[in-house]
Structures are given as C-alpha cells and as structure tokens.
C-alpha cells in the first residue's frame, strides 16, 4: 500500500503565460500553462514563484523591476492582482518604432 501524498499547496486555476524577446529566450519557452500555488495573488507573487522553477526563469527574472507584464493584452504593474486573468505576458522594455 502506498500512502496518498498530500500536495504541499492547493493549485489555483490554470493560467496561460506568454514570453517575448529575451525573456522568451531565457525561459526557453514561448508559452506555457501553469497552475501557481494558492496565495499567488499578484504579478510580483507570480514572478517570485516562477523564479523557483529553474535556472532559465531565474535568469529571465533576475531583475524583477526590468521585466514588464501584461494581463489580457494590457500593461500592468507588479502589484496588479491576477484575479480574472486568462493570459499573462512577460517581456523586456519595448523597443519598437
């Protein structure tokens, strides 16, 4: 008989993440779907959790204030709540024009 392993935290609903430019390159993915732990309430919470997921994420988010974020195609700040978000994007400062 194997014992049931109790999850250390309850996963929240799945969120689609998309990455661009050098954030995409460092993470090593253009997009993924994640289920961050309960208590991941803001963009900054999400960034800090992502940084625990491996070297690529750590490199991408080494400077937490450089990487920009958008929720559902609109710019947001680090303290913006994730509630209701279906797609969250992370990217470097923009260099278009």
């Amino acid at each position, binding site marked *: 008989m194997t014992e049931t392993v109790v999850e250390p935290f309850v996963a929240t609903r799945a969120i689609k993440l998309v990455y661009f430019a050098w954030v995409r390159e460092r993470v090593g993915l253009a997009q993924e779907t994640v289920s961050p732990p309960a208590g991941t309430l803001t963009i900054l919470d999400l960034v800090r959790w992502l940084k625990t997921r491996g070297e690529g994420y750590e490199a991408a988010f080494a400077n937490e204030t450089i990487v920009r974020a958008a929720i559902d195609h609109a710019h947001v700040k680090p303290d913006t709540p994730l509630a209701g978000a279906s797609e969250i994007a992370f990217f470097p400062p*923009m260099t278009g024009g």
Partner: protein
Amino acid sequence: MTPVIRIQREDFDLNAELAALTAGRRDIGAVVSFSGLCRDEGGTLAALELEHYPGMAEAEISRVAEEAIARWPLQGLVAIHRHGLIRPGEQIVLVAAASAHRRAAFEAAEFLMDYLKTRAPFWKREHLVDGSVGGWVEAKAEDDAAASRWDGSE
C-alpha cells in the same frame, strides 16, 4: 473618427496612406506624418528583426490612438507598424495625423510616436552582415522621457 491601425509584415506605401487619409475630405488643413526607417550606422547591420505580441500590439496602439483623439481635434489618424526582418533603408513605422490646423496634427503625430515607442509591444534584434545574430536592442531612457513629457500637460 476611427483610426486606421495596422500591424503587418509587408511594406506600406506612404503616399497611398496619406492619400487615403484625406480622400474625399474638404475640411482637413494639415497632415503631419512620421516614418521610421531601419538605420545602419556602422555598415554592420544586415537587418533588424522585429518581434511583436500579436493582439496586444493592435490593442495598445488603439488605446494610444484613442488618447490622441481625445486630446486633439483630429479628422484622421493612421498608425502602421511592421514586424519581421527589415533591412536598412526600409520603412518600419508610419504615424500620420490629420486636422484642421497644423498644431493639432504636429502634436498628435508626435504624441502617438512617443507613446508607441514605449508602450507598443515590439522588440528589435540586430542581424549582422557577418551572419551572426546580435543582441536585443536596449530601451532608451530618452524614449521614456519623451513619452512622459505628455503626462499631465494640457
């Protein structure tokens, strides 16, 4: 007034865009346009690669355009931004504003361009003539300063 906003890989015809902006109108006294070109400074650049965030690029430029329409009396507004590989000398971006008088057209075009540079989700990377791929172009503090001077004024 509905702004014309396009995100596209292919080139655009500046004269055709300006002609479309004023076609059939008798009330436009001023058209100001800005075209941004791919520039090579040291003979080392083969092309710029422009990555963008599809969906958000259109949405963000639309929000900036609506802000311009709310601030100035405009009769027409165009913003076109290319993505993909763009070679030195080629066009990257066009903004144009039409109004009864020049001041509104000048200011709206400059506002649109300043905000587009700091808010539209595009990223440039250099491809060099030796075949290597250079680094991502870094954002400039002077671009942030150019955009922020529109905050809180008027």
